[in-house]
C-alpha cells in the first residue's frame, strides 16, 4: 500500500546529488546512494536503463537524475528508481567522451609510438564513409585531381545512427583483409556532435587503432575532434585535407622519377668521363715514365762509358807515374851511388896519398928547420964555439957563481969535445973578468 501510494504520488521526481556506494553486480542493474550535504537516498538503475547510459557512472560524480520513488519491500527501505541520469554541468556525451578517452588512452591506443607513417606513393586508397554524402565526392575528386592513376576502393557505411559504429569498424577490418589497400581514409562531412558520435564509439576507435593499414581520420570540420582522430595515424581536418595528405601529385612523381633517372645517367656519365680522363692521364704518365727510363738508361750508358774512360785514363796515368817512379827509384838506387862512390875511391886514395906526401915533406922540412934552430940553442953548439961548462964534482951542478966553489975543490969542465978535471986555485968573487 505504501509502495503503491509512493509510486503514484512520486511517479516522476528530479534529484540532484553525488553518486556514492556504487555497485554493479552481474545482473546488470546498478545500485548506488545519492547524497548531498544533508541527506541521502538509495537509488537503483535497472539494466534496461543502464544500457542506455551514454557515460559511465563513477563515485563522486555529480548528477541530475529523473526517476520514481519506490519501496524495497524486503528491507522496508524506500529508494528511487532512476530512468535518466545526466552529469551535472555538462552533457552526457561530453562526459562519455572524456571517460572513454581516458580509458583508451590508459590502454595505449593513442600512443604516438603506435602511429604508422603514411606511404609516400599509395597505389590503392580505401575510403570508409557514407556513399551518399558530399565527403565521398570531395575525396574522389581531390584524390584523382592529384593522382589520376590512384585506385580507390570505397567501403560504404552509414556514418551516423544506430549500428553505424559497428559498420564503420567492420569496413575498416574488411579493407585491411583485402590486402591491396595502402592507406585508408575514415571520415565524414560536418554535422552536430551527435551526428559525429559514431566516431567516438569504442568499437570504431579500436578498429582504427588495430588497423595494419595506415589510417587518416577526417571527421567533420577542423574544430571537430573525435576519438577516431586520436586513434588514427594521421588526423586530417576535413575529408579534402585527408585526400591531399594521402595522394601524391602524379606529375611531381613523374617529374621526380625523370629527374632521378637523369641524375643517375648524368652521374654515371660523369664518372665514366672522369675515369676516362684518369686513364688518359695515366697513359700520358706512363709515356713520360718510358721516356724518363730511356733517358736514365742513356745517362747510365754515358756514365758507364765515362767511368770506363776515367778508369782507363787513370790507369794510364798510373802507369806513367809508375814508370816515372821506377825511373826515379832506379836513379836513386844505392847500387848506383855505391858504384859512383867506388869510382872515386882510387882517385881519393891518390889524392890522400899526394896530400900525405905533401904534408910529410912539409913536416920534414919543418923538422929540419927546427932541428937547425934547436942545434943553435943547444949548449953543445955553444961549446963548439969554444965555450965550456963547469960543473961541480960530484953533483954535476952547473957552476954559474964563483961562490959555488971553494979552493981546492975539483970541478969538471965540459968542452965541445972531452972534459977536463980541474982543481980550483983561486976564487974571486968580484964580477969583473
Amino acid at each position, binding site marked *: 500500500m505504501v509502495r503503491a501510494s509512493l509510486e503514484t504520488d512520486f511517479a516522476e521526481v528530479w534529484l540532484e546529488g553525488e553518486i556514492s556506494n556504487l555497485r554493479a553486480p552481474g545482473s546488470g542493474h546498478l545500485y548506488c546512494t545519492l547524497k548531498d550535504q544533508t541527506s541521502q537516498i538509495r537509488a537503483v538503475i535497472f539494466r534496461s536503463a543502464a544500457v542506455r547510459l551514454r557515460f559511465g557512472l563513477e563515485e563522486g560524480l555529480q548528477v541530475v537524475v529523473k526517476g520514481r520513488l519506490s519501496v524495497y519491500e524486503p528491507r522496508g527501505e524506500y529508494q528511487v528508481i532512476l530512468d535518466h541520469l545526466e552529469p551535472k554541468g555538462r552533457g552526457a556525451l561530453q562526459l562519455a567522451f572524456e571517460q572513454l578517452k581516458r580509458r583508451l588512452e590508459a590502454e595505449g591506443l593513442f600512443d604516438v609510438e603506435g602511429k604508422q607513417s603514411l606511404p609516400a606513393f599509395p597505389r*590503392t586508397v580505401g575510403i570508409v564513409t*557514407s556513399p551518399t554524402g*558530399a565527403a*565521398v565526392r570531395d575525396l574522389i575528386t581531390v584524390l584523382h585531381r592529384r593522382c589520376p592513376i590512384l585506385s580507390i576502393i570505397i567501403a560504404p557505411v552509414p556514418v551516423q545512427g544506430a549500428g553505424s559504429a559497428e559498420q564503420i569498424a567492420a569496413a575498416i577490418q574488411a579493407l585491411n583483409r583485402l590486402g591491396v589497400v*595502402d592507406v585508408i581514409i575514415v571520415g565524414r562531412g560536418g554535422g552536430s556532435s551527435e551526428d559525429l558520435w559514431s566516431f567516438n564509439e569504442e568499437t570504431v576507435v579500436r578498429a582504427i587503432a588495430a588497423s595494419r593499414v595506415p589510417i587518416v581520420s577526417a571527421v567533420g570540420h577542423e574544430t571537430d575532434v573525435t576519438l577516431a582522430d586520436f586513434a588514427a595515424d594521421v588526423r586530417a581536418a576535413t575529408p579534402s585535407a585527408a585526400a591531399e595528405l594521402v595522394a601524391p601529385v602524379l606529375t611531381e612523381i613523374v617529374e621526380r622519377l625523370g629527374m632521378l633517372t637523369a*641524375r*643517375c645517367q648524368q*652521374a654515371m656519365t660523369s664518372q665514366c668521363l672522369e675515369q676516362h680522363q684518369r686513364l688518359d692521364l695515366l697513359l700520358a704518365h706512363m709515356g713520360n715514365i718510358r721516356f724518363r727510363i730511356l733517358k736514365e738508361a742513356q745517362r747510365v750508358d754515358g756514365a758507364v762509358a765515362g767511368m770506363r774512360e776515367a778508369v782507363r785514363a787513370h790507369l794510364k796515368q798510373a802507369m806513367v807515374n809508375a814508370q816515372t817512379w821506377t825511373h826515379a827509384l832506379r836513379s836513386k838506387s844505392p847500387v848506383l851511388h855505391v858504384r859512383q862512390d867506388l869510382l872515386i875511391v882510387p882517385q881519393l886514395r891518390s889524392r890522400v896519398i899526394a896530400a900525405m906526401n905533401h904534408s910529410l915533406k912539409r913536416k920534414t922540412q919543418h923538422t929540419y928547420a927546427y932541428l937547425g934552430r934547436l942545434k943553435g940553442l943547444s949548449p953543445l953548439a955553444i961549446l963548439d964555439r969554444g965555450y965550456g961548462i963547469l960543473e961541480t964534482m960530484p953533483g954535476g951542478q952547473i957552476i954559474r957563481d964563483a961562490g959555488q966553489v971553494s979552493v981546492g975543490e975539483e970541478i969538471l969542465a965540459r968542452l965541445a969535445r972531452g972534459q977536463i978535471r980541474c982543481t980550483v986555485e983561486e976564487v974571486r968573487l968580484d964580477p969583473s973578468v
Partner: protein
Amino acid sequence: MAGVKFEQAMARLEAIVGELENGDLPLDESLKIFEEGIRLSRNCLKVLEDAERKVEVLVQDTNGKKQLRAFTSDDIDVQGSAEDS
C-alpha cells in the same frame, strides 16, 4: 600493396643516385648500381603508365560476403545526405 613496392623502388633509386653522385664507388660497382637504377626507373615508369584508374565499391552480397564492384556515379546520392560538406 603495389604502392609499397613502388615506394621502395623510388627510395632505392634515390639512394643509387646519391651513391653515384657521391662518386666514391669503383667504376664496376657504379655500373652495377647504375644498371639497377635504370631498371628501377623503367619499372617505376611502367607502374605509373600501366596504373589503371579504378574506383570500386566494397559491397556485401546476399550471402554476407564482401565483394568489389565498379563504382558508378549512381552510387553517389547527394540527395539523401544529411551531411553538409
